[in-house]
């Protein structure tokens, strides 16, 4: 296979935003996660936890709560607005001001007809959910003190509201408070500090479960208003609760980073009267757990430490399978790094800025394992701050490095970059009006065209040149899918454009004819990356379930190689990887080589070599290294996997055949987090 010179890049200061809240839709198995910067991410739990949609955030949005109503997603935040998201165009559809000050919580009734929001001014406001919009209905009786948490009774007749020092139960019909449950303050020094009920749950048997800032999880009888049981679970706050769908289990997230499960079980065998018993403790976070979701089989948690953790409940899943494995999702499932292969430039995308870096140079040669002396250090050429409040959702850098484009939900910006000793950047002022709201950008390889995915899976083609920027065409398909295109890829020869949308469809457009060429047979897992081979014009697609397909664009069918791969099957070790392949590049010198990577490895697939046998060792680099050259060929197989580099954000092959590896060590992310709450450790 040979030697590679690797630019090992660690200066991409990507910092994910803390997870603020989440909501799980059990009908569609989608998890919506809101981050502190206002971004909302949609994970598909049916498809290997693939992050299929990202709605970029906005300054000052401060989302506090998310709520699914059927397929519709609502959020509310401290800016006092209720937002319904347009999940097809990945942006807020409309915002409604609740006029009650900051909103702490939002909750819909079980029929999905009404939304209740809890406001800073102490009102619980009821909104009717209509088609296409929501409409204010009325206020429940107002009380002093902010409403921190809300929960509807499944019958929709009552609402439990968590406030400071108390929980109130409202009659949803009359709006009167029917019960007042006083919550004890913490003992000791913090006796004077008011206790905040961060979260409430309301079960169909009128049990109310509350979690508060004194570290208690309390079980109440909502009919009599009496306290049934108190569990002191932490010295800090219980920030969030989540009830399972069958109401047999409740999980509570604490500031210590633990998630504690309570189950409604009989405490002794053969006894019928059940009670809430503290059962399990999960400790997967270093910081506050501020978001929780209880799915049928797993505990999903997220918080300050920015990682989404899916912890399967081992009594609900089969043990020792992929399903039972703990999953931590720390990195986005899309590429935030652009690479200009010809110019040796890297583009880093942040929510608020773009950074353009030029890679360094080395001198001399070295043996494998050596580190070469760096002759010229990498250089940050441009730091481009975005304009406006909206965060950057996508960006693109042309292969020659001469063009740069980015987009927010409201606008697209295109820049011309020129290098002559000094660098100059010029904004292309007049963009065609079609280019307004896009969610994926891509330049053609000769940098003459810009492709932008727009609403209803359409792709806008714009010609870019020194003189002008001209709208050419809108490419549309006919399947009727309105899901957004999340992957765009143009062939090197400029003839083909491939798009993939979250309905798992991959469309091929003929750019010469500006029309749909064909559609790749729909596979039931979402493509995580696609690429068109520069020599053979075959489309390589890798899916969330880790399957790899090669589709011949000319013949409109899967290639022999792809068929052989499917016939033989991929090794389970490959299939069990828990991060998706996010980028594919090709070796211009050896058309047999396909380079792809996920977070923990990169792999060069050599199409000329046989696939590994099902009992073969997938990671065989060490074995091969120890063998004499003559025997290697017998042992080697198509998958050359390198795990020397971890937490990969991007792996790309430059034109001079040197690899660029962009790493973002988790430890670096962790070190930038604020200090966790102090915990008494032994002998400290």
């Amino acid at each position, binding site marked *: 296979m040979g030697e590679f010179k690797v630019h090992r890049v660690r200066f991409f200061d990507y910092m994910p935003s803390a997870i603020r809240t989440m909501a799980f839709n059990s009908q569609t198995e989608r998890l919506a996660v809101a981050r502190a910067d206002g971004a909302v991410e949609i994970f598909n739990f049916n498809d290997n936890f693939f992050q299929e949609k990202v709605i970029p955030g906005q300054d000052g949005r401060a989302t506090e709560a998310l709520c699914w109503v059927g397929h519709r997603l609502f959020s509310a935040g401290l800016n006092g607005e209720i937002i319904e998201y347009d999940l097809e165009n990945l942006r807020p559809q409309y915002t409604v001001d609740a006029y009650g000050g900051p909103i702490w919580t939002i909750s819909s009734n079980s029929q999905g007809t009404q939304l209740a929001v809890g406001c800073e001014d102490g009102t619980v406001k009821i909104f009717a959910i209509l088609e296409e919009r929501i409409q204010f209905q009325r206020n429940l009786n107002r009380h002093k003190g902010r409403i921190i948490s809300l929960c509807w009774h499944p019958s929709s007749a009552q609402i439990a509201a968590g406030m400071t020092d108390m929980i109130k139960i409202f009659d949803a019909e009359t709006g009167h408070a029917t019960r007042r449950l006083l919550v004890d303050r913490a003992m000791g020094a913090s006796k004077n500090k008011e206790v905040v009920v961060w979260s409430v749950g309301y079960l169909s048997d009128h049990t109310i479960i509350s979690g508060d800032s004194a570290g208690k999880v309390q079980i109440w009888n909502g009919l009599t208003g009496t306290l049934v049981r108190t569990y002191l679970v932490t010295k800090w706050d219980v920030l969030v609760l989540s009830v399972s769908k069958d109401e047999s289990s409740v999980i509570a997230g604490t500031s210590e980073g633990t998630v504690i499960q309570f189950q409604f079980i009989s405490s002794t065998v053969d006894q019928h009267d059940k009670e809430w018993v503290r059962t399990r403790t999960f400790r997967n976070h270093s910081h506050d757990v501020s978001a929780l979701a209880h799915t049928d089989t797993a505990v999903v948690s997220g918080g300050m430490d920015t990682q989404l953790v899916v912890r399967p409940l081992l009594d609900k899943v089969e043990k020792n399978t992929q399903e039972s494995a703990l999953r931590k999702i720390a990195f986005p499932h899309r590429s935030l790094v652009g690479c200009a292969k010809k110019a040796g430039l890297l583009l880093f995308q942040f929510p608020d800025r773009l950074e353009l870096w030029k890679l360094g140079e080395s001198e001399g040669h070295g043996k494998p394992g050596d580190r*070469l002396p760096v002759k010229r250090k990498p250089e940050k050429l441009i730091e481009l701050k975005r304009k406006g409040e909206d965060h950057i959702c996508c960006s693109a850098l042309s292969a020659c490095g001469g063009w740069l484009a980015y987009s927010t939900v409201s606008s697209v910006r295109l820049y011309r970059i020129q290098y002559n000793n000094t660098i100059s950047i010029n904004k292309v002022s007049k963009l065609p009006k079609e280019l307004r709201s896009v969610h994926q950008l891509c330049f053609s390889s000769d940098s003459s065209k810009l492709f932008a995915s727009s609403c209803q899976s359409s792709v806008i083609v714009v010609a870019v040149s020194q003189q002008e920027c001209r709208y050419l065409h809108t490419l549309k398909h006919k399947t009727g899918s309105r899901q957004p295109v999340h992957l765009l890829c143009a062939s090197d020869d400029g003839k083909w454009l491939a798009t993939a949308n979250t309905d798992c469809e991959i469309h091929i457009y003929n750019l010469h004819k500006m029309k749909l060429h064909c559609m790749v047979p729909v596979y039931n897992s979402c493509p995580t990356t696609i690429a068109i081979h520069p020599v053979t014009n075959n489309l390589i697609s890798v899916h969330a379930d880790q399957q790899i397909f090669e589709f011949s664009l000319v013949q409109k069918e899967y290639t022999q190689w792809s068929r052989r791969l499917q016939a033989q099957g991929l090794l389970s070790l490959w299939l069990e990887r828990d991060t998706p392949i996010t980028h594919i590049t090709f070796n211009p010198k050896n058309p047999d080589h396909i380079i792809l990577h996920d977070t923990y490895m990169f792999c060069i697939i050599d199409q000329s070599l046989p696939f590994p046998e099902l009992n073969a060792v997938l990671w065989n680099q060490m074995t091969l290294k120890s063998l004499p050259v003559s025997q*290697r060929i017998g042992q080697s197989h198509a998958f050359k996997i390198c795990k020397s580099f971890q937490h990969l954000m991007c792996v790309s092959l430059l034109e001079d055949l040197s690899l660029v590896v962009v790493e973002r060590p988790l430890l670096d992310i962790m070190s930038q987090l604020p200090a966790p709450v102090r915990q008494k450790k032994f002998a400290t």
Partner: protein
Amino acid sequence: MAALYEGYTLCGLVPDQNLSSSGIQGIEEERDRDHVVVTDSTRSVTLYKVSDQKPLGSWTVKQGQKLTCPAVFNSQTNEYVAVTDNKVIRIWKEDDILLDKAFKATVSSDVWKVHCTHGGEPVVLFQRGAVRLLDSLLAAPQQPIEEVLAQEEAIRWSTIIVAETQQFIIITTEQKGEHFLYLQRLNPNSVQRYRLEREEPGLSPLSFSATYRDKHICLLYLYPNGHVYQSVLSVRGLGTEEGVQALPLPRSLLLGLPVGDGQLEAASAMALDEAHVAVVGVPHPSAGGGKDFLCIWNTNFQTLQAGKEMAGKIYGQLWSYSNKVFIPHGKTLSIIPFECPKSSLASALGKLKHTKTEESKTPNSVPSWNNILHGEKAQPSKSAETRRTRTTRKSQSTTNLTTDQVLELIKTAPVEEIQKEVEGFLTRAEFQDLQPSVGQLALTLVSRSLADPAFYSSSTLAQLVHTRCLCHSVCPDLVLLALEKKDYFLCQLCLQFFPDIPEAVTCACLKAFISIPDVDAEKVSLEPDSVEFMENLITRDRAEAGLQNGFSPTSSVVNDRQTRAEDVKKKASAPSQLSCPVGLHKAVLINEILQTPYSDTFLLPHLKDLSSQHVMLFLQYLQFLYLKYSQDAFPQMEGFRSPSLSQIMDWVCLLLDAHFTVLVMTPEAKGLLLNLHRFVKSQVRLVSELGKIEGSLQELRKMKAKESIGQYSIEIIELF
């Protein structure tokens, strides 16, 4: 360590308005240890049953009259004697209801106190120092009473003491700040006067306590400055001449108690035994200045052994009968059981072997229903074991024999009678004075058994061993006798309770145990706990072998036993198939050997005497135990006496050391040795693997140090 146990209340008190006195004049022992007569400071006398905390009778004198001395009980006539208004002696029986109708006699001089010892005749002590026996006084009540004391000399304290068969009255007096002591012997009467050495000027003793031991009277007295002195008076060399001449009384400082600030006011010290002193009203050294403590001090080591805070005011009064302290405090009279085991340096330093087990057998102060119902003597300070034997006893020997009598009996009487008498004796005797007598009893029993082959009383010996007062050095022939008589139960008990069995005897036991035929061993009844432990171990082994439902494990043990002994060899070569190479009871006995203390150097020569056959069997059994312990992670069952893994390993090593050459030559031992070798090899392998891991971990650390990746680097990698 001496210990004070949880106390209980006997009765409430009616102290003076100003709380200066407790309202109790005296407490005297009645017919037995469980009954006391409490005389209050005004008009009434009450009889209490201590274990029930219940008054049995009460007598009151008429209004206007006053009891001036504590009532005593004359056990010869079962009468109570008290004095009212200094001059009227009253005598009544328990069934007299009204004191006024009882016998009374007026004497010509003021009476100080009436003293009476258990079984002795009451003695009347007059305020001017004269002493009369009650009978002789009552013969002529108005007889003239001489004045013994000088002018301005007044009695401060008095007591009566029985030394051998002599009764002594001890009186302390004060005259112009000087303190004197009179030792008055009765029948023939003689008196000796001593002068107490002066303490600091103005200090007079707060309390006295006298005990008789080793033919001497020990007088203990406490001064307000916290000094406790002891003076020893010889009983023998008492001059016959009437002592006008006051001899100086030598004294030794026994204790210097901490007094805190100021001096003691209401305090009292009392000797509990030769080494322990109970002190009340003195501050606890580690509890500040409060004086309401009851403490037990060890005078030999000058250490505080036990302390207890008493609620309410302390009046400086203290009585002690049969291992109980009677102390009035606040508005109650409390009874606090205590225990003063023989003090030794080891116990003082907390290093005595059985400290814990003794503590766990705390005297049971709660009255037992059994005792109340069967009218038995409640003796809460007795150990639980003696209680058990007592309650199971059917026929109680009516005659209360002394040690000597029992000893005589042992020399001649048949087994059954001896058994009965020894049982009775053990029940009656106090724990403390059990030690010497039990030793004597055992010695006599053993020597008779040795002399007379037909005589052997297993159960009596077992009972004696059970008292835990015996050890091997007291009765060196006992274990060997038991072995000779094949009394394996007694052997087990001895091994269990004797801390000092010599290695030679241990080895002899081992040899005997190993060579018992299994069939015989099963007939022996052994300690149930140890048997249960072994049973558990073996039945688990059975269960492993595939126990069927409804298949009784005990029957399987019996059925398999013979066959098992036969195919020991086969099983030794197949260690995976675990089965116990010896029978259940034999295993229990061997376990007992494993747990006896020994020292290798002394044991090794004796171990060499074992035959190779025995060594083989023993090793196989040890291997079985080892495998059981290590393979199943067999939990050391709580509460069961069981050998520890290290004990087992030590014995394996010892045996191999002693017999290695022989074993190497024995063909049958080959498999066994190979197995043991395999254990060792696996251990060695484990250690070497750990060593390897250590090496690679160290490498890893070096690598970590090397790697420091900056923000950017250009590296060369190679893919194959």
